């Protein structure tokens, strides 16, 4: 048996694809005019205010179960797709 038998092709669910467009529109605006050598830092780039803005939009902890910690429950597949 091949090790890769355990990796089944999967897709991002339709409702998450919709949110992806919303995130994409926000990012296009937020990153407009930022030069490539700065964008290259990305996850080595630290901007608490940007992180709080994502929080205000409900886009942090998007994979967390709605145990009262936050309102909206989203599909965990967003864990991946939000970055795109």
């Amino acid at each position, binding site marked *: 048996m091949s*090790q*890769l038998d*355990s*990796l*089944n*092709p*999967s*897709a*991002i669910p339709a409702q998450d694809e919709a949110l992806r467009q919303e995130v*994409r529109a926000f*990012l*296009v605006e*937020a*990153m407009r005019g*930022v*030069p*490539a*050598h*700065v*964008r*290259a*830092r*990305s*996850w*080595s*780039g*630290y*901007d*608490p205010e*940007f*992180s*709080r*803005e*994502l*929080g*205000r939009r*409900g886009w*942090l*902890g*998007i*994979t*967390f*179960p709605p*145990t*009262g*910690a*936050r309102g909206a429950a989203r*599909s*965990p*597949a967003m*864990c*991946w*797709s939000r*970055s*795109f």
Partner: protein
Amino acid sequence: MNFGAPVGSHWIADRQSGPLLIKYGTETQKQRYLPAICRGEAFFCIGMSEPGSGSDLASVRTRAVPHESGWLLNGQKIWTTNAHNCHFMIALVRTSGETTDRHKGLSQVIVDLSLPGVTVRPIVDQSGDSHFCEVFFDNVQLSPDALVGDEGGGWEQVTAELAFERSGPERLFSSIALFDEWLAYVRTPQGRTPQAQRLAGKILSQLAPLRAMSVAITEKLTRGESPVVEAALVKDLGTGVEQLIPAAIADDLFSRDAADVPAELLNTLNYITQVAPSYSLRGGTRDILRGMIARGLGLR
């Protein structure tokens, strides 16, 4: 990351520390940390590596001993990403036994980095940034609920946690801003050459299946599984492409007339070239990952 947004402040809490607390944390810990993580007000770092204990995590020497109903923490972490901008660290520490006991006696504790006795010292890297830190603990008094999960369960918890760390987009997309900037140049009449078009196809044909593998692993994580070997595969292959991108683009650009190459593209190449060696060190070196893959295949 695809847009190069500055995601470093919240990334680790969002990707790793939050899910860890959801899986192993007490109700009190969840209520205390998760809402703050979701508001972007609690940033976390991960205290694993120590001087002399990088890839061989089982040899960590930082120690927490029971003290005044809580824990007294002493030791040192190094190469901790973003510690100087974080509020909390989840640290792998020894709570019993000796380093010769290896995996036994390790636990995970949450350290409030504002506590007395904690010193965070940024390390300036060759790109001029301070991305990594040294963190020192000198008699840091932790509260009883600093312990995450079971005492002595640290090794199993860390192993499960690393599956989150090894399969996400940050293991495929670290060089993507450079790739995009170069593609934009290759799309211009001046930049377009048959060699560059072939290279673009070669890189894309590697990124696409990696993305599919990463999504497949995300689905397994979603179901509560720990696809440790699969995540190691994706990270090993992913960092390979991430390192191929600056090397191949450098070959392409430096085979051209220097006056034709946009300065910002070269700036971006410079930065990525300087950080690219770290891709296959952080989050598990290439050698460690290949050992795990070999074990997964039953070869060792």
